[in-house]
Structure formats: structure tokens, C-alpha cells
């Protein structure tokens, strides 16, 4: 029985996978970036399907709307051209491809085993209020620690990028 929710899930999952494949296969960096945006928007709607409204909105605002804009900005600024495609190197042909196949089979096997007896969880809406009280009460220490970590990375990038004053 295909309920509308499963239908939407299947369509979005297909879109996300297609976007991810296209991300790798595209030769121009802008096209790859656009494919990544498609993946992120599809993921956001999948979150929405699970009742995680806030996460869905943040996924679009932060990833699709801010980070990917910066990606595209940089690609435009450098005016990066199309990649040249090489034939597979010897290492990739004899080690990489078989190894990838093995991993794929393994992942498929475990996913098949893991979900076969599971009932799909009923989607429950998590309000932003609940989420934030959890974030700022229970998990406030990891939260602050993460923000501190990001701040350090930011300062590091600034120090590396800054030109030495010539005097």
C-alpha cells in the first residue's frame, strides 16, 4: 500500500540520489554545485516529511542558501572552467573499482537486514520550542563548545588569509 507519504518519500529519495550521482558526473563545477543544491533541498523536504520542521528550514537556510551560495560565489570568482576527464588510473582500475563494489554490496546487505523487521516510525512534529529548550538546557555545553570550535576555525582562516602588512 503506497500512502501519499511513501510516494513523496520515494520521489524525493530518487531526486536526492539522482542529484548526488549528477554531482559526481557533471564536468562543470557550477553544474556540480547546482546538483548539490538539489540534493540539499530534497533532504530538507525529507526532514519535513518526518515532522522536523525547524531542521528542514535550517537545512535550506544554512546549507542551500548560505554555504552553497558561497561555493558558487567562489567558482564564479575564480571563473573555474570545465574539468578535464582522464581515463581511470591503474590504481583506480584494479583496486578502487572492486573495493567500491565490495562496499556497495556490504552496505546493501546490512541495510536489507536492518530495515526488514522495522515498522516505520510515526512522524511526530517536534516544535521549535522543544528543540531549543533541549539544545539550550540539556545540551548547552556541547552546543557552546561547538560554537567555540567554529570560532577558532574562523580565526585561523583569518590569520592564514591575511596578508602581512609591508612596513
Amino acid at each position, binding site marked *: 500500500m503506497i500512502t501519499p507519504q511513501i510516494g513523496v518519500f520515494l520521489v524525493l529519495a530518487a531526486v536526492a540520489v539522482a542529484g548526488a550521482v549528477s554531482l559526481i558526473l557533471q564536468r*562543470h563545477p*557550477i*553544474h556540480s554545485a*547546482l546538483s548539490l*543544491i538539489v540534493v540539499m533541498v530534497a533532504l*530538507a523536504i525529507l526532514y519535513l516529511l518526518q515532522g522536523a*520542521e*525547524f531542521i*528542514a*528550514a*535550517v537545512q*535550506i*537556510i544554512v546549507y*542551500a*542558501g*548560505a554555504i552553497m*551560495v*558561497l561555493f*558558487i*560565489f567562489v567558482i*564564479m*570568482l575564480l*571563473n573555474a572552467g570545465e574539468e578535464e576527464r582522464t581515463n581511470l588510473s591503474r590504481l583506480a582500475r584494479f583496486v578502487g573499482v572492486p573495493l567500491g563494489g565490495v562496499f556497495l554490496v556490504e552496505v546493501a546487505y546490512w541495510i536489507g537486514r536492518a530495515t526488514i523487521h522495522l515498522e516505520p516510525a510515526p512522524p511526530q*512534529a517536534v*516544535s*521549535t*520550542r522543544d528543540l531549543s529548550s533541549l539544545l539550550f538546557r540539556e545540551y548547552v555545553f556541547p552546543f557552546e563548545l561547538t560554537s567555540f570550535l567554529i570560532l577558532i576555525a574562523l580565526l585561523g582562516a583569518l590569520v592564514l588569509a591575511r596578508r602581512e602588512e609591508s612596513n
Partner: protein
Amino acid sequence: MNELAAQHPLLIVVAPKVIILLFVLLTALAYLTWFERKVVAHIQSRWGPFRVGPHGLLQPLADGVKFLFKEDVTPAGADKFVYFLAPFLALSLAVTSIAVIPFGPKGLTIFGQATPTGITNLNIGLLILFAITSMGVYGVALAGWSSNSKYPLLGGLRSSAQMISYELTLTMSVVGVILMAGTFNLSEIVTSQQGNYWWGLPHWNVIGWPMPQVFGCLLFFTAAVAETNRAPFDLAEAESELVAGFHTEYSSFKFAMFFMAEYASMITVSCLATILFFGGWLSPFPQTPLFAWTRFIPAASFALAGLALAAHGIRYITIFGRIVLPFLGIVLLGLGLSFALPGVIAIVQGPFWFLLKIGVFLFVYVWVRGTLPRFRYDQLMNFGWKVLLPLSIANVVVTSFFIVWMER
């Protein structure tokens, strides 16, 4: 009919709402261009469009026909797919954002189905709006890149940098309102502003308690003007430096789509400013028996406007105008009289005040464009990062301080 509506709520209740709203929005877009040209013209002591129809009222129609019949040129070496995608992305995102705007209180009832006034009422309406706005930059950036031409590329780069910078202020400036309302739901944000102080003024967030969001409102509107790439922040299309900026290479209806996207986002931003800071659909008067007469303001203003238009129209220069303008006046008069009917009067209150406030914001938009010179690029970046962003963060800190202090 009611049973049919209950079985297919999407087809019978929601779809007509979407179609009507789209029709109204697109007409409003067309007449917004007329409005802007008229206002800017009068600011500059000109007449503005006057030839096509009385007072140039048919100018948008003429423009639309012209856009449709122009040759659609694709520059050589353009990235075809992205070149076509960009205007669609810009327009569809700009138009979609109107879907979460509530135009009036409570629900309408269509064929026994309760439905919000507006297309939908989401718990995260505000976040959805910001998500759509943040995606809006792609239309501009991709248009600039895919044209394979230097001026569009520079325009696209400028505007993406600008939109990223001002988006931060835009988002931070509404945090004060969210703290006071305690919700992301646009309807609930409006209802949280209900009521008046004992000294008369309404409880709108811009003069709200415990922390008036005057700064929040100013910051929001400034950032919003920058976010919609309008003067004085229209560096992406600075005609003295970049020809026409990101849409230099676009012609025909694809150019018109960028144009419409810009006006649609102006309308969205005006709606949002109204909802967040100026009480949305709420009337500015207290809801007491003393002010019961204010319920007739919509009817009276429409009727008076209709009478004035008819009186002016009879003495218009052209014969066509002498027929059309009095006719329009009588239509307005009829609408005004119907607004005084017992059943209708309650329904028109919300949309009337809401549209009035939006109109004020749209006027300010055009006024600002007609008054202020364009920023220089370094000034723009300095202003955004060193003035607006710290101020908006300070607004959040002060507001949350006052809220905690008053709650104790």
C-alpha cells in the same frame, strides 16, 4: 457541493485560492511598475507614463505585449541550461513566498471547509520565508554567470556578495520580534500584537512592550531593500558601471521575469514588515464601542475615492478617459458601498488594513529610490558588516534582556 469539498479539499478549496491569489499578485506586479514610474516621475517633476490609456493606466499591458513579442536572444557561449533556469528560479521563488503570508484573521469558510485567509498557515512560516529568500540569490548569481559576458558576471558577483552580507542583518533583526511573540507562525505573530495601550496607540511590535522594535524595524527594512537589490543598494545593476548588471544579456520575456521577480519580492518584504512590526491585518484603532465607527473606514475610503475619480474623470482630456475613469470610479463606489453591508464589513476589515500598510511600505520603497543616491561598493560592505550587523545583534541582546527583566 459541501460533500464534494470535503472529499477533495485540495481541488475545490485550495486550488481556487492559489489561482485567485496568483492572478491578483501578477496584476499587482504589473501595476506596481506603473505606480513606481508615476511616483518617481512626480518626485522628479515629470508626468510619467501618460499616453497609453488615461493617466498611462494601460502602460503595463503595453509593456507586457512588447515583452512577449521581442526577439529572445541567447548569447553565444552561454551555458544554455543555466541561462534558461535562472529567470525561472528567480520568478518562481519570489512568487512562492507569498504562499505563507496571512492576509486576514482566522479562517474563511468555503463550502463548509475552514481554511486560512491566505494559502497556508505554517508553524514555521517565517523560517520558510527566509529559506525562500536565501535561495533567491541563485537567480541573480546564475544569471550573471551563465550569460558568458563580463558585465553580468560582475553584477552577479556583486549581488551575491551583497545578498549574503545583508541576509545576516535581515535574519537577526527579526529575532527581537520572535522573542516577543514566542513563535515562528506569522498568524500568531500578528495576533500577539492585538490590543492597545491605555493611552491609545496599538500594541504593534514597532512600539511594543517590553522593548519597542524601532531599531529592529529600521534594520529590517534597510536590509530588505538591500536584499531585494533595490536602490540605493542596486549595485548589481548599476547602469553607470555595469550597463544593466546581471540581466544585461537577457531579452524579451526572460528579462520581464527578472523584473517581475524583483517586484514580487518587494511585495513579500512589505508584507513581512507589516506582519512583523506593524500588526499585520489589525486595525490601528482600539476595539471599543467608542471606536465602532472605524469599521466603516474601508467602505468610506473606497466610496470617496470612487467619487473623486468619477468627478475627475468626467473632465479628462481624452474621450476614452472620459468613459473609462468615471466607470472605474463607479466600480470603486459600488465596492465601497458593498463593504458597508452587514455580512461583508467583518470580512474586509483585515485585508483592507493589511493592504493599506503594504501600500505604505511600497511607497516608501519607491520614495527611497527616488531620493537616495547609490552606495559605493566598499561603503555598502562596510555599512552592512560594521554598522547594521552589530546593531542588529545589539538589538537582540537588549530585547532579550528586557524580556527576562520584565518577566521576573
